[in-house]
C-alpha cells in the first residue's frame, strides 16, 4: 500500500496512509502517515467507537493540509488499553515451535497446490 501511495504521489495525487504497522510504512517511505498504535486490523479506530473513528478520520484528512514535507508521521492520540497483543501477535516461543513448523509445511503445500492449479497471479 505504501508503494501505491508513492506512485500516486509521484503522479500528482496527494495521499495519506493510515496504518498500524509503523515500521513497514516508514521504511517504505510515504509522504503523509497517520499511525494508530493498535493491533493490526482497526487503523481507523476501535470497532463501533464512532467518536474515536471520527477523530482519527478527521486527523487523517487534516494531514493533507498541515504536512509540508514528506515522510511525516503523526500518531493518533489513542491507546488500545490492554497491551498484551504486542507480545501475542506472531508469538514464537518454545511452546509453539513445533506447531509453527507444521503450519509452515501446510502453508507451503497450499502454495504449491495453488501454483500447480494456476491460482496465482501471472505477473
Amino acid at each position, binding site marked *: 500500500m505504501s508503494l501505491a501511495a508513492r506512485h500516486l*504521489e509521484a503522479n500528482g*495525487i496527494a495521499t495519506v496512509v493510515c496504518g498500524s504497522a509503523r*515500521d513497514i510504512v516508514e521504511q*517504505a517511505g510515504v509522504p503523509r502517515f497517520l499511525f494508530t498504535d493498535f493491533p493490526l486490523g482497526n487503523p481507523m479506530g476501535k470497532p*463501533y467507537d464512532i467518536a474515536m*473513528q471520527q477523530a482519527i478520520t*478527521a486527523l487523517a484528512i487534516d494531514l493533507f493540509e498541515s504536512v509540508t514535507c*514528506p515522510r511525516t508521521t503523526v500518531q493518533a492520540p489513542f491507546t488500545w488499553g490492554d497491551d498484551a497483543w504486542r507480545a501475542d501477535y506472531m508469538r514464537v516461543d518454545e511452546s509453539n515451535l513445533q506447531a509453527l513448523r507444521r503450519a509452515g*509445511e501446510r502453508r507451503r503445500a497450499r502454495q504449491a497446490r495453488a501454483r500447480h492449479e494456476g491460482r496465482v497471479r501471472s505477473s
Partner: protein
Amino acid sequence: MSQQEPTPADAAYRVFVSYIDKSRIFYQAQGYERPYRWAYNADSPFTPPAKPLGESRLGLVTTALSLDVADDVDVATLPVESAYAAPLDPTPQRLYTMNRSWDKKATHTNDLDSFFPIHRLQELVAAGRLGSISPRFYGIPTEYSQRTTREVDAPQILEYLRHDGVDVALLVPL
C-alpha cells in the same frame, strides 16, 4: 489484577511493534529460510493537494476485498486477486478481510469503519470539510512481489483515480 486493567508497555524496549522483526522471526520458525526484503526508500515523493479540501474529491483505497463471502470460506476457492474499483452506491455492508494478516485474536473487522471509514468520510462531506467522495472505492492486493505492486497494481489504481476525477487519496491497509 483484573483482566480489564491494561498491561503497561515495557518502556525498556521499543514500545511500538516492529512487524518487520516479528514476521521475520515468525516465518523463520515456519521453515522459510529466506527472510522477506521489505520495501525501503530513503526518500519519498511529495505533492501538495491541488485544491482546498472542501473542493476536493477523495478516493478511498483499501487492502480488503470486495467479496461477499463467509469469513470461513475456503481461500482456495477465492478468485485470483488484482487491483479493483467497486461502486460505493450502495455502500458495501462488509468487505472480506480474512486472507489478510491482521490480529485476529485481539480484534475483529466486523465494523467496516474501523478500517474502511466510509461513513466517517461521508460525515466530513456533509460538514463541508471534504468536497466529495469518489463514486467508487479501490482495492489493492497485499502482494509479495513489490515489482507487481509498483508496475501493475499501483498504475492500475492511478488509472481508476484519474478516471474518477479523484484529487486526493486516503489509503488504509489492514
